[in-house]
């Protein structure tokens, strides 16, 4: 019988005392080893196999498969994906199906262009060129802007974020100071200056500039994720087995952090597209001889005051359409990776 004066030293002891107390109260206490439960007959009865085919079996799904399933079920995500798909299709094949000839001035009938009609669904600009062709041809550069900027920003942002969040120490302090500095200056200010002074109208150069200025937020997010994830137990477990730091950071932790990072990356795409449009609208961006949704908008402002709205409306609608699609997708992705945040 456990000695009460020793005080509880392990959970077993505490349990023993309580059970012993119950047995005492019932008057049937027999001492350890004699209880009805511990007789070999009782144990034989309990030691039976269970029926395997009775159980409902659930095949285990990997995290990615689960996420994909949830994404598919999400109505908005599916709609968004379709919208984005349409735009990407137009971006790739549009210029082939509806080529744009800036010198084709045969369609002009009014000064200021025609409103939407059956021949020109989106109307014509002030020189008689079809706005539909403008939009469809501009898709290529605009969409490309989104994607390339995202790739560059994500690469740099991930690298910085992982280094800071995983390794910590002075690397963290230094990198975060840099991030703080970049975030202290208003984003648009720095983009406009960089685009105007160093962009030179070259789309590719501008994409690089955008990418190199868009990474700080993603870096901060990655770092925050890593700071919390590296405290998880599986990290200790992997370390104990001798997994190297680099492998740990990329093979083990990164898959878990990918959810919010992917969502953030989609937002970068959306922002880059809008940004390109504004910068080109101000004539600081892509040179006028190339077409993007932004350049399509740039000369349209003057016409607006005169009441010729279609030239400004449709390219902007195209941007909105694409961005709405991206945001819907992003929402679906967010829910797919973290169903607890589900509405």
């Amino acid at each position: 019988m456990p000695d009460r004066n020793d005080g509880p030293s392990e959970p077993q002891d505490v349990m023993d005392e309580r059970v012993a107390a119950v047995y005492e109260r019932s008057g049937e206490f027999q001492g350890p080893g004699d209880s009805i439960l511990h007789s070999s007959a009782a144990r034989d009865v309990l030691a039976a196999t269970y029926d395997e085919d009775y159980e409902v079996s659930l095949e285990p799904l990997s995290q990615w498969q689960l996420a994909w399933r949830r994404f598919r079920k999400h109505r908005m995500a599916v709609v968004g994906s379709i919208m984005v798909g349409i735009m990407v299709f137009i971006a790739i094949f549009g210029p082939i199906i509806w080529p744009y000839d800036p010198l084709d001035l045969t369609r002009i009938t009014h000064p200021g262009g025609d409103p939407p009609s059956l021949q020109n669904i989106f109307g014509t600009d002030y020189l008689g060129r079809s706005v539909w062709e403008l939009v469809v041809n501009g898709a290529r550069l605009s969409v490309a802007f989104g994607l390339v900027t995202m790739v560059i920003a994500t690469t740099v942002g991930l690298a910085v974020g992982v280094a800071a969040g995983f390794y910590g120490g002075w690397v963290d302090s230094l990198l975060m100071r840099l991030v703080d500095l970049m975030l202290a200056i208003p984003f648009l200010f720095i983009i406009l200056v960089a685009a105007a002074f160093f962009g030179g109208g070259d789309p590719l150069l501008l994409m690089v500039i955008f990418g190199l200025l868009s990474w700080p937020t993603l870096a901060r997010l990655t770092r925050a994720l890593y700071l919390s994830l590296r405290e998880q137990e599986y990290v200790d477990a992997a370390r104990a087995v001798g997994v190297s730091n680099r492998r740990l950071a990329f093979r083990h932790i990164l898959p878990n952090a990918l959810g919010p990072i992917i969502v953030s990356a989609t937002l970068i795409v959306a922002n880059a597209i809008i940004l390109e449009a504004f910068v080109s609208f101000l004539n600081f961006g892509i040179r006028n001889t190339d077409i993007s949704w932004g350049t399509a908008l740039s000369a349209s402002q003057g016409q607006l005051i005169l009441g010729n709205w279609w030239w400004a409306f449709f390219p902007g609608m195209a941007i909105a359409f694409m961005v709405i699609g991206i945001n819907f997708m992003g929402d679906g992705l967010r829910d797919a990776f973290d169903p607890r945040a589900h509405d």
Partner: protein
Amino acid sequence: MKGSSVPEERPQDLLVVEDLRTYFEVMDGTVRAVDGVNFSLPRGKSIGIVGESGSGKSVTALTVMRLLDMPPARIPTGSIRLEGRDLLALSEDEMRGVRGGEIAMVFQEPMTSLNPVFTIGYQISEAIIEHLHVSRDEANERAIAALAQVGMSSPEQRVKQYPHELSGGMRQRAMIAMGLSCEPKMLIADEPTTALDVTVQAQILDLIRASQADLGMALMLITHDLGVVAEMVDHVAVMYGGRVVEAGPVEQIFTSPKHPYTLGLLDSMPTRAHRGERLSVIKGSVPNPFNMPVGCNFAPRCPRRFEPCREHDPELRPSEDGSVTEVACWLYAEPPADAGVTASGVRTSDDPGRAEP
């Protein structure tokens, strides 16, 4: 201690739960979290609801308090009578009076159960003002008294402190003080000690027991820990798959458990007698809530199942050998005639599962 399908209500019963069901409608289907629970709790007495996670014990408590969000949850049948009044028939305003005023509840996680931006004095006073309608100053005095009652040192200082300034055990004491401050008739404690250290556990349990005695309060203790149950309660209800499978006085349950699940639970407790041996486990796992087995819920894991178990749901009733314990198991009751076999194993037809012509 009655738990049969139509419990008679005796005058000393404080709470009578009858055929209570709580279902959750979610995207993938309906979860029958509580599927026909019956028990009664006399004034001043205590009952322990025991089971694994997923057995429906917490949902039962939340249903009694009507703290569940009703769109996903619904209560298709059942009644919860507190001193004769059916709580399920009360309006929300009336129910609010019951919550905290007549039935108090203490939760499992003291770390997160208190609002971090208010002092504990404020949070306790809030409850007092709501139910006892006293002034702010008097509520504060009572809050200090409540804290003293639960054994907190220097309660006048504690009242002004924030939850994050207290340890887990102290926070749980504060929660209990909050619950007791309005002198309720009954306390529901949902795993009150699971998140605490072992030494603190004992203190909190002692506190609950002492408070119960002081106030003549009834106690509904929910736990998976059989050791806690052994020490704290008069009666036990063992839950599995949303139902009570065995119920009776605590001594009976521990010395002559009847239901195979209860046997398994007791046998899996680590005890000194078996130091060095493997712990025994109940094979298998809790059934998929969307796809409960036909027949007895426990049958897939039961080492003593036989034909009627897979087709017919046993009801909770006194076992045939005349003991006080009630059990829901075909081993202790006569299976329906068309089950093909009697409890003693005699087949009534050559083809098990087919009704007699």
